[in-house]
């Protein structure tokens, strides 16, 4: 069973992983790529454990790769010393 239902806008874009991520209770991150979303995959998995979440999103938003309004919902944080 899905651990949780999470809206895409609550997930964070991770440049290093090239995935949308959401905290997993094990301490790692649930992950799903744009390509997964484009083909209609809605399960984001954690690489460290058996849990997964269901991602709530509009598949049409991910159909056209050149569609600029599909930028990640939040900018990556900038490190400030």
């Amino acid at each position: 069973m899905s651990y949780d239902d999470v809206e895409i806008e609550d997930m964070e874009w991770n440049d290093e992983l090239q995935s949308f991520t959401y905290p997993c209770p094990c301490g790692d991150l649930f992950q799903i790529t744009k390509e997964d979303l484009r083909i209609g995959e809605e399960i984001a998995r954690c690489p460290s454990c058996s849990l997964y979440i269901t991602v709530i999103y509009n598949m049409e938003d991910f159909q056209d790769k050149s569609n600029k309004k599909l930028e990640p919902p939040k900018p990556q944080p900038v490190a400030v010393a």
Partner: protein
Amino acid sequence: MLILGTGSRNLWHFKLGVGECNNKAEAIDDRGVSRVSAAFLFHVVGEKFRIGNTMEQEDDEQQQVWSWGAGTDGQLATGRLQDEHSPQLIRSLSAYGPIVSLSCGGAHVIALTSGGRVVTWGRGISGQLGHGEMVNNLQPKLVKELEGLVITHVSAGWNHSGFVSETGAIFTCGDGSFGQLGHGDFNSHCYPREVSYFASKPVEQVACGMRHSLMLLRGNVENPVYGFGSGKRGQLGISRDSVKSSSLPQITMGLENLKIISIYANGDHSAALSGDGSLYTWGRGFSGAPDAYIPCHFDAAAFPISDVALGWNHALLLTGEGEVFMLGGDRHGVLGDPQKTPSTADVRGKSEETMMQIIPGLVNLKVVQVATGAEHSAFITDNGSVMTSGWGEHGQLGLGNTNNQTEPRVVTLGRKFTLSHATPRVYCGSGFSFILERHDVSS
């Protein structure tokens, strides 16, 4: 003699001359930097060599620390990057003297020493360790930026940290992408930075959740609690409507003129406890109940509550009589097991009374302390036993396996020596656990 650490990153090599117990222990990290460490204890061919000065030796014997569970970010302080299914005795903290408390986050830990110094380790990729860098630390390390201050309260969130000083100043560092550092922006910081908003409002406590932070002010003030960070599930309690986020502190509503003594945050949940044992909760609803945008008095409890621990989907309430009740525990100990997991729809609309349940297996025991990870629970009983229940996939229950437990089971610590008058305290991070046991010199 050469002892090799097993971590894939930051591999540590320890060199020690065999049979020469007066030799220095040298720790060489992966960059080839040699560091002299005087606080390691080695067992060599069945013989015990103690390296260290007398003061450290005394501290070591008055304090024992164990860790277990998820360890892939170095959060267990074992020097390794692997999960541990049984309690591991941790020696690497003895160099810092007496530890008074720990706070465990998503994958990092903050230790507070009796002198008000702060030591951190574990995941540091968002700057949450406060060392001025964005890397993981497998070994405890003093936060030098806070040197000269006496820190009295700390809290570790998912990827951020909060530190309160003796004078009531509050410092935050780590992930700030939801405004959870309170500096008025969405930047992350790798050094603790003072939250200027509270310059004239001394802070007593800080509580860091997944993406939000709560502050409890000192003294009798009209508005005792403030929140900042993500407010999507109502966890800030600052408006009757959903607030996406606030990067500056805002007053948490509904607690006006109450004498709040403790605040709690984990996941998207928030809670406050008043001096008369009344509990207030806000944020994500338990067991599929609606989210609460402002604090609600939890009136299902007909008895004073003495302590609270919040997980990501459950809460533990401890009464003065040593009884424990669980809120939202419908999935506790059955995570990942489709046969046993009720769907959210089954519990939607249930009242607070039915959401609150007594924990089987604790009925005849007196519990003195509770702690919660994201999906596991830990209990200390009045005879000093440590018990755990919940999700166990990473060994976070410390029972020697990766099984789930619906009923609390006793954890075997394997004490090297028994401390007189010592009561262990338990602290849980998302997928891991720590025990701190100190000899109480006053007893």
